[in-house]
């Protein structure tokens, strides 16, 4: 078999995946935090202030990556849901369930930073702007997914139910977004244009792209941490988990 393909297939095997996560964690963490530090330095200290919004525009460096990730995580979850329902990959189920709270966290960040940005720009903490409203609905969809998983006691069944719900959401989210945008143009709120991204200068764009990449890696890092936990939580009786416990050294630090 093709060695690369084989390596990928092995990711679906819990007792091979777990040590791989352990080995990769420090490197992913290192790259993530270096990029994050670089992006924050360039975004907060080096990039010039926006001529219209002044220094307040710097919130963009956390708002936009979080908003972008809130949607990207959902798409990733839909792919995992498909692998659960079509190919019955168990590990995908764990990844899906681990992703939901992370997606919710990014959505929450997008909402909070959007509100804080809105205060100086619109003069109010909350405005029923199309993007903020969509994000709020997305937050409820994420919460629904992990509450559903909690409510079903048989976790195998819960994983499949959650996968189905995720796919139903995937079809619905674009429709929801379209309808909210349509509704928003019907009841135009005041001074919306101020919030639109201005034609962005290259010195402002580079930190944004770096932050975007850093946030993607943050998702990967959080996913690995949560997967590592759920892998051993799911099969406490498995031989490889028993073997982990034996050496009473501190080999479990990240």
């Amino acid at each position: 078999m093709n060695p690369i393909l084989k390596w990928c297939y092995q990711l679906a095997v819990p007792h091979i995946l777990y040590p791989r996560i352990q080995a990769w964690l420090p490197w992913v963490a290192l790259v993530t935090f270096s990029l994050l530090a670089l992006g924050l330095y360039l975004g907060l200290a080096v990039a010039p202030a926006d001529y219209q919004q002044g220094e307040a525009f710097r919130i963009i460096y956390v708002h936009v990556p979080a908003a972008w990730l809130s949607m990207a995580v959902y798409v990733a979850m839909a792919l995992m849901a498909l692998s659960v329902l079509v190919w019955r990959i168990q590990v995908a189920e764990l990844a899906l369930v681990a992703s939901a709270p992370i997606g919710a966290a990014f959505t929450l960040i997008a909402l909070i930073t959007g509100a804080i940005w809105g205060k100086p720009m619109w003069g109010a903490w909350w405005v029923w702007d199309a993007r903020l409203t969509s994000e709020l609905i997305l937050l409820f969809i994420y919460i629904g997914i992990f509450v559903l998983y909690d409510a079903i006691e048989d976790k195998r069944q819960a994983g499949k139910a959650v996968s189905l719900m995720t796919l139903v959401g995937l079809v619905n989210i674009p429709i929801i977004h379209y309808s909210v945008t349509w509704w928003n143009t019907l009841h135009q709120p005041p001074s919306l244009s101020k919030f639109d991204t201005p034609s962005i200068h290259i010195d402002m764009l580079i930190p944004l792209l770096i932050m975007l990449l850093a946030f993607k890696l943050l998702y990967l890092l959080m996913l690995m941490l949560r997967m590592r936990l759920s892998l051993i939580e799911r099969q406490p009786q498995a031989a490889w988990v028993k073997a982990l416990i034996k050496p009473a050294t501190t080999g479990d630090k990240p």
Partner: protein
Amino acid sequence: MILFWRVLKQQLDLAYEHKTAWLNPLLFFALVTLLFPLALGASTSNLAAVAPGLVWITALLATLLSLETLFRDDVADGTLELWCANQPSLLVYAYAKLSAHWLLYCLPLVLISPLLAYSLHLPMVALAVLMLSLLLGSIALVWLGAIGVAITTGLKYNSFLLALLVLPFYVPVLIFGASAVEITTQGLSAAGPLYLLAALAVLAVTLAPFAVAKALKLSTS
């Protein structure tokens, strides 16, 4: 097709035996509508301004409440498991079950809505559009909601979970439905949102039964 009519008729006969069951969502609709003037004040212009949204939200909640027990009896007596044995017949079962539900619980809401809207001083010109929007919208609400009901079937305390899962998906229906009525009160044509509502209804009726069937299989296995 014969199977479809058989299940539909069986459901309607069943409802005929429990004579008053179909009244429940209707009474809920009427009673909640009565609460609005009491809370908001009876001023004609105030009520008329918010009437499209109030009627729509109340109808939406009445539909959601009525859906909750959709599959409960069939799970309890084991008939659902028999249906799940075979994919085509499960789909037919889902279609028949949902059609019966819509006829029994949503059609009465649509029919009584002009009366209730009129009591909230919604202008007469908008009454026909209100009925049409509820007619199309309630189809989408039932078929979309059924997915959530099927997934939460068998869970003990599922009312709030059902609302949490389903209400986000109801957002487009509510937006287009309430807007169609509101636009009409402003003297404009409501054709746009009505077409969009019809599209949502068609989409829900064609796609949702597959998700419902899958969810029913999951919750009975």
